[in-house]
């Protein structure tokens, strides 16, 4: 059940009615049941995985709580991690690992004992990376003593099966969500207004902007050989914007849905296109994942407290893990590793050069004539460069599915793309690409992108729903009507898959 499907539009009001109609003490059970129905709608088999994760982490949490011995706690934590990561590995990474071993041994002319990769036809359960990471954070937190172990299974089941966030994030923490699930929630009109508006805004970003951008991004990658120079840069920008609108749109839908139920979920995006540097970008983009990796991997590795070389390694390693989390393929891993390298270079620059020249007039002049927006532009350009690779694997899959007789490797796509990127005196294929859907589609796209940036600039770091709801009634209703009309009339409804669902 996708958030932009008719199924969801029927499910949501029925669910809300049941949620508020049952006695308050049973609300969490309705949440759990709704979550299983929601997840089972993708495939009933997926609920077995959900139940396995839930039982495993609930037991592990309880057992860790029951003992004071660190060794025993460690044992239970290890079990929890083994099961969670085992599920993730089995469904998502086993084929990737097998292929790599096969390729490596092939180079050395050694046979591989696994005869047929029977597992490469397994369907990856929707949002399994989100599910396992969310559940894993609970057991780690219980182990560290940050969170108390949940004593009642029904509440824990509601936590793991909290449907607004379960398949596409934000990766919510137990310390934030579980206490809210224990509270009784009565219907609140203000929550409904805020939640529905936020959902509307998310749907607008998803169906009006992201899915329209998909026309252009798909076409650009399909013609990777023909695009060059500015066409490639613009295509990369469109792709970054598509991922942003798609994913942040989904997060808005999740946040809005949770808000209607009276539950506050963490923000996942904070205007990343306004970030001033790479580190800042990372604190604004997919915040729930970046903080998860920071809390559970980066800090574990020593964060910034180690020597320079170790810090550089930590940064690159965490970003590589991030890439692997996003997709079991090399382009994704390399794409994020490139971001990590850029962040490491920035760290070295700040730590060595900037610190040394900061008191000088040169630095002050530089600071004066290099305003915030210029920092943002440079940051975005670096991300564009790295993220160009992000989409290469799916482009390869699409091309090979369309032309199985003439398969291409991901390197055969990436090489011309990056090669042509630097031909800045060219913009091959630009007109054909931009106009292949007609001038009207392009005009609509540009108009709504401008609307998005203007709205983000005007709202700042405040929540959009709070900004709108603070206005007078006429203004509010005008916004409601315009937003609804834009979604209904300008939405793209025949491209119904969320980009992040593959993760």
């Amino acid at each position: 059940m996708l958030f932009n499907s008719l199924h969801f539009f029927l499910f949501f009001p029925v669910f809300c009615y049941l949620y508020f109609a049952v006695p308050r003490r049973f609300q969490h059970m309705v949440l759990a049941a709704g979550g299983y129905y929601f997840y089972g709608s993708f495939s009933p088999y997926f609920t077995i995985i959900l139940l396995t994760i839930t039982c495993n982490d609930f037991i592990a949490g309880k057992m860790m709580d029951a003992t004071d011995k660190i060794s025993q706690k460690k044992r239970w934590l290890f079990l929890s991690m083994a099961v969670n990561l085992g599920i993730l590995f089995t469904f998502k990474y086993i084929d990737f690992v097998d292929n790599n071993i096969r390729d490596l041994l092939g180079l050395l002319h050694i046979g591989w004992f696994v005869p047929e990769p029977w597992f490469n036809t397994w369907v990856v359960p929707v949002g399994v990376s989100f599910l396992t990471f969310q559940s894993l954070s609970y057991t780690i937190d219980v182990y560290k003593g940050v969170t108390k172990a949940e004593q009642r299974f029904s509440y824990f089941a509601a936590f793991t099966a909290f449907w607004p966030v379960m398949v596409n994030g934000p990766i919510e923490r137990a310390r934030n969500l579980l206490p809210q699930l224990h509270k009784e929630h009565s219907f609140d009109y203000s929550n409904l207004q805020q939640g529905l508006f936020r959902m509307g805004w998310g749907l607008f970003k998803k169906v009006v902007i992201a899915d329209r951008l998909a026309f252009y991004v798909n076409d650009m990658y399909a013609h990777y050989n023909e695009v060059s120079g500015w066409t490639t840069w613009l295509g990369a920008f469109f792709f970054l914007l598509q991922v942003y609108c798609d994913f942040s749109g989904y997060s808005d839908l999740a946040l809005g849905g949770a808000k209607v139920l009276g539950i506050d979920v963490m923000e996942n995006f904070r205007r990343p296109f306004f970030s001033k540097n790479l580190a800042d970008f990372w604190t604004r983009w997919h915040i729930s994942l970046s903080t998860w990796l920071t809390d559970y991997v980066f800090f574990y590795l020593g964060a910034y407290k180690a020597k320079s070389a170790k810090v550089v390694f930590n940064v690159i390693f965490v970003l590589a893990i991030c890439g692997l989390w996003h997709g079991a393929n090399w382009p994704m891993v390399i794409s994020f590793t490139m971001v990590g390298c850029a962040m490491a270079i920035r760290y070295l620059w700040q730590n060595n050069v900037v610190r040394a020249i900061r008191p000088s007039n040169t630095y002050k002049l530089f600071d004066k004539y290099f305003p915030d927006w210029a920092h943002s532009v440079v940051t975005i350009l670096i991300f564009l460069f790295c993220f160009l690779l992000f989409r290469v694997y799916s482009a390869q899959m699409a091309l090979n599915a369309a032309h199985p007789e003439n398969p291409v490797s991901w390197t055969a796509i990436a090489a011309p793309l990056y090669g042509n990127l630097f031909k800045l005196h060219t913009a091959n294929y630009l007109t054909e690409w931009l106009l292949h859907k007609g001038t009207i589609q392009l005009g609509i796209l540009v108009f709504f992108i401008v609307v998005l940036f203007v709205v983000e600039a005007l709202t700042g770091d405040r929540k959009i729903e709070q900004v709108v709801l603070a206005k007078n009634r006429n203004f509010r209703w005008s916004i409601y009507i315009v937003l609804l009309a834009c979604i209904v009339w300008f939405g793209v409804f025949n491209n119904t898959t969320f980009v992040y669902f593959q993760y």
Partner: protein
Amino acid sequence: MIKQILYKAGILAGIILILSLVMKFTLPFYWGDSTQTVKFEHYKKNSEQYNAVYMGGSLEYRHIDPSIIDSTLQKNGIDFRSYNIAVDGHTFVEQMTDLDEMLKIRNPNLKYVFISISSEPYFFPANLHTSKWVCWHNATSTYRALSIIPTLEDDLKTRLKFCYFYVMSWVENILKIGFMPEVMQFIFQKDTYETGYLGNKKDGFYPYDYEEHRMFMEYQWEDTLIRQSKREYESNAVKRDSLTSEVRKSFEQYTDKDEANAAMVKLCMEAYNKCKKMGIRVFFVLPPRARTNYSLLLPVFHAMPDDAKIEVADPRKYPKYYAVDYGYNFHHLNYRGAKLQSHEMARQLLPLLQPAETSAP
């Protein structure tokens, strides 16, 4: 509280509905289909040039060459000037909408209308949510589809699914869900639509052979579906033969006692009588290579008045229509086949029209 929420949601939905309806009443029914726009706009401008119109889907658009039929009949002293208004993808139901709309266009010369009996109201689900498909559906067409589909013999799930598809398409058309770009394109760029859809002689006939060499309908850099379908047709002899033998079997097994689908017959006769009242003579055509099983089509066709039937589908009588040399793909003729069919239609029309023409003062 629930009342208040429903009231406010109702106001919002009502405003959107009113705005959508305003838009609907200012647009012609073919706003989402460039082919139909070009063909209907051409007919609107030149309606009085024609006294005969062919309705239908691709089996008519790609098969019936008006110039052949016109010249054959004119040589025999019959004033016959025809136009092919058929559009790809139209089923039995959509052509009735076309007929309603075509009859609204003033043409005092219109004497003959050809209706195709070539499909039940099923369609490719891939067409769903496309502006072309959605724009064809209004309350009447949805009612017509819903009156036929439950009477078909397919399983309940299939029938329910297609009923749902028709209702959804109608709702999408009312609210123009996701179609504002197409509406804007119609309003601002209608005059720039490709007129190649009209065919080489501007009579609405355009065989696939021509389109293959002038691909204005598809992106030029992509291999087209048309070419793919041709390649598959040429290479897959087993499927070709099995389709033909299925058609032959339907014809062989047909008897006068076979019961016709009452809903389809009713719809045809409504169209027949409506035209008759306007002084227009209707001919029902049973074309070759239909996707729909002929065991459904044949009884409906034979339930039509005797002087209103043109049959060009029987593989026993017309084996060439099913021969690989005359086919473009599994369900369409190439230009050679289209010429054959058009000649045959003219041959069958001649005796049907001559008495009426010669008896005229």
